[in-house]
């Protein structure tokens, strides 16, 4: 029978189909970070269980770590205790750890691909909803809760019900200055934040094929914002080139690589495979997107006004009113005339080298607006190093930006990087929920290029027609 990419991956991981309709699914990679793991390790301790495969388990510290000069000595005693707990747990169980100060420390979803931990055809889980990022390699990757983290540590499996398949085809070519961030925001605007619930997206079509691995990771990263369990993109030459391009210590080598590649080439779905649902979007019609509300589905083209109470599909007038009140906006308002306080370039969505290059290209030779604070937070220490080798750090600093160290930073504001109440932020992150970037803070989600231009102008601009701030 013809199979989709998802079905091929699923089938090669079923240990046993169980009578209750679930399957015991083997897990090839388990990524661990400091926030969602301590209670899982404690569970192992209480039951006397061991980590079944420490060599398939990788951990780093990202959510809690400061991204400024204080990063090596965390001031917050509770954060410090959590980071130390991870160190202790990794030591006790023999798990790979890229801790603070390590050359490979970074956001868990940035370092996985970077180090060759993520390759095609795997099952990969992490106690973090943005695990969907790794689907860009044609690997079934999804977020789990702490109870499931403990389950994977102890058994290297999960009990899962088979999700549905949802094909999202982007036909045609993207317009200049429109990126994969805009593609995924557009999709979420169309289907809503629950539109993909119970499904795994497979992104395909000409516009997806044309994307770099970094751009593919951005689109898969936000699958969860569309409610989906995971997002997938079939591996192709772009994927293989990424894996081969640099030293990726955990990717297969030599003969093992050749054998793996032969299997990876068989992963793309069969031409006549059937999906439970299909949606086709003409990529050439997508404009730069900006979120205006408190849900990633509340999104508009940059040249559209803020919608009216009854103009938002999938949200009641009451929900829209609440969101507008929180955001300090009114229907009909133009976001290109609304002043911003902070611009944040970073997060597991958009903090890779290509994202920083795009932002730097806009900022090069220009100055941020006086009233704007601009933060650039690389996704990993390796991204930071690469950016510095290319001189991007000098571009950022000359433009008036803070050039930071790696971490989740202001995406979820668990470390000291946070918005004050009513501060308005252009953010390359993934969630504009109330208080996400700090209690009372107001988040607008955009691409790195849009964020960089907004930092210069002091408000959003339509990057397609912007004159670069010249009068």
């Amino acid at each position: 029978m013809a199979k989709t990419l998802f079905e091929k991956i699923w089938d090669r991981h079923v240990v046993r189909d169980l009578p209750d309709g679930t399957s015991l699914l083997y897990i090839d990679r388990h990524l661990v970070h400091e926030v969602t793991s301590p209670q899982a390790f404690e569970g192992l301790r209480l039951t006397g269980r061991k980590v079944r495969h420490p060599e398939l388990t990788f951990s780093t510290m990202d959510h809690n770590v400061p991204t400024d000069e204080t990063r090596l000595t965390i001031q917050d005693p509770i954060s410090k205790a959590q980071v130390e707990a991870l160190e202790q747990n990794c030591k006790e169980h023999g798990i790979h750890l890229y801790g603070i100060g390590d050359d490979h420390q970074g956001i868990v979803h940035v370092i996985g691909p970077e180090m060759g931990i993520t390759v095609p055809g795997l099952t990969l889980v992490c106690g973090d909803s943005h695990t969907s990022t790794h689907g860009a390699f044609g690997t079934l990757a999804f977020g789990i809760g702490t109870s499931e983290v403990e389950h994977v540590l102890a058994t290297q499996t999960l009990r899962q019900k088979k999700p549905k398949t949802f094909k999202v085809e982007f036909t045609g070519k993207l317009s200049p200055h429109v990126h994969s961030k805009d593609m995924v925001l557009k999709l979420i605007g169309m289907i809503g934040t629950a539109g993909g619930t119970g499904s795994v997206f497979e992104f395909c079509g000409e516009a997806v094929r044309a994307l770099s691995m970094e751009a593919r990771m951005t689109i898969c990263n936000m699958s969860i914002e569309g409610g989906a369990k995971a997002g997938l993109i079939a591996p192709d030459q772009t994927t293989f080139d990424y894996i081969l391009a640099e030293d990726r210590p955990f990717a297969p080598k030599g003969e093992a690589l050749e054998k793996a590649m032969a299997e990876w080439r068989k992963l793309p779905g069969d031409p006549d495979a059937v999906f439970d649902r299909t949606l086709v979007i003409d990529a050439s019609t997508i404009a730069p997107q900006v979120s205006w509300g408190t849900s990633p589905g509340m999104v508009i083209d940059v040249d559209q006004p803020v919608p009216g109470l009854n103009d938002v599909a999938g949200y009641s007038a009451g929900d829209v009113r609440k969101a507008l009140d929180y955001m300090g906006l009114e229907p009909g308002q133009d976001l290109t005339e609304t002043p911003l306080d902070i611009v944040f370039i970073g997060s597991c969505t958009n903090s890779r080298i290509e994202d920083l290059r795009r932002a730097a290209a806009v900022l090069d030779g220009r100055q941020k607006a006086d009233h704007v604070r601009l933060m650039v937070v690389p996704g990993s220490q390796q991204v930071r190093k690469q950016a510095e080798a290319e001189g991007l750090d000098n571009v950022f600093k000359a433009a008036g930006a803070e050039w930071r160290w790696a971490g989740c930073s202001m995406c979820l504001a668990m470390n000291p990087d946070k918005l004050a109440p009513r501060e308005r932020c252009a953010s390359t992150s993934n969630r504009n929920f109330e208080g996400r970037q700090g209690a009372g803070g107001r988040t607008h989600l955009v691409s790195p290029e849009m964020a960089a231009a907004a930092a210069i102008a002091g408000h959003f601009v339509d990057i397609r027609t912007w004159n670069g701030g010249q009068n």
Partner: protein
Amino acid sequence: MDAFTTHRGIVAPLDRANVDTDQIIPKQFLKSIQRTGFGPSAFFDWRYTLEGKPNPDFELNQPRYTERSILVTRNNFGCGSSREHAVWALAQDGLRVIVAPYRGEGHDFIPGFADIFKNNCSKNGIVTIELSEEEVEEIFRAVYAEEGLEATVDLESQTLVLHAGDGEKVYAFDYDASVKHKLLNGLDDIEESLLFEEDIEQFEKTHATWIHQG
């Protein structure tokens, strides 16, 4: 995990759609390495004013809902972050049951709960019940109309009985058979999966994980 068979308690309303887990438990509470102590922080930013006082405008702060153990809310509850801390907070705040509506059908189907959240609930003895929008609307109206309104949830028969003053109302709900079996018997997931340890070992003999161990 403690078993869930039946539960009777006071129903409280949270009339908002798409409540995300950042709202259920904000990030500052995720720094704990404990599994307990999250209850008073549930819905923190809505529940308390910036000065740290109970916010009188937050519906769950009304005295009539203090003893709540059943929450009725709107669709896509628990979306966003995978943090199980959200479920721990709700459970430790006294919740045993959450009711939310599904909407539409086929491609337009919008579920009552987000996937990861629903799964996390099942690991912590919270029963998530999905009813039609009309049924949930009815429960909202009944809750507003009658102070101290109680309901009984019976997992075995998959029914929620609303004990309204003007007569009882019974709602039947669908429930995943495997989760039901686990909750009714208070089974430990890991222990259950380890019953298949031989299958796992057998599987590992031929399965390629494509990792390079340098």
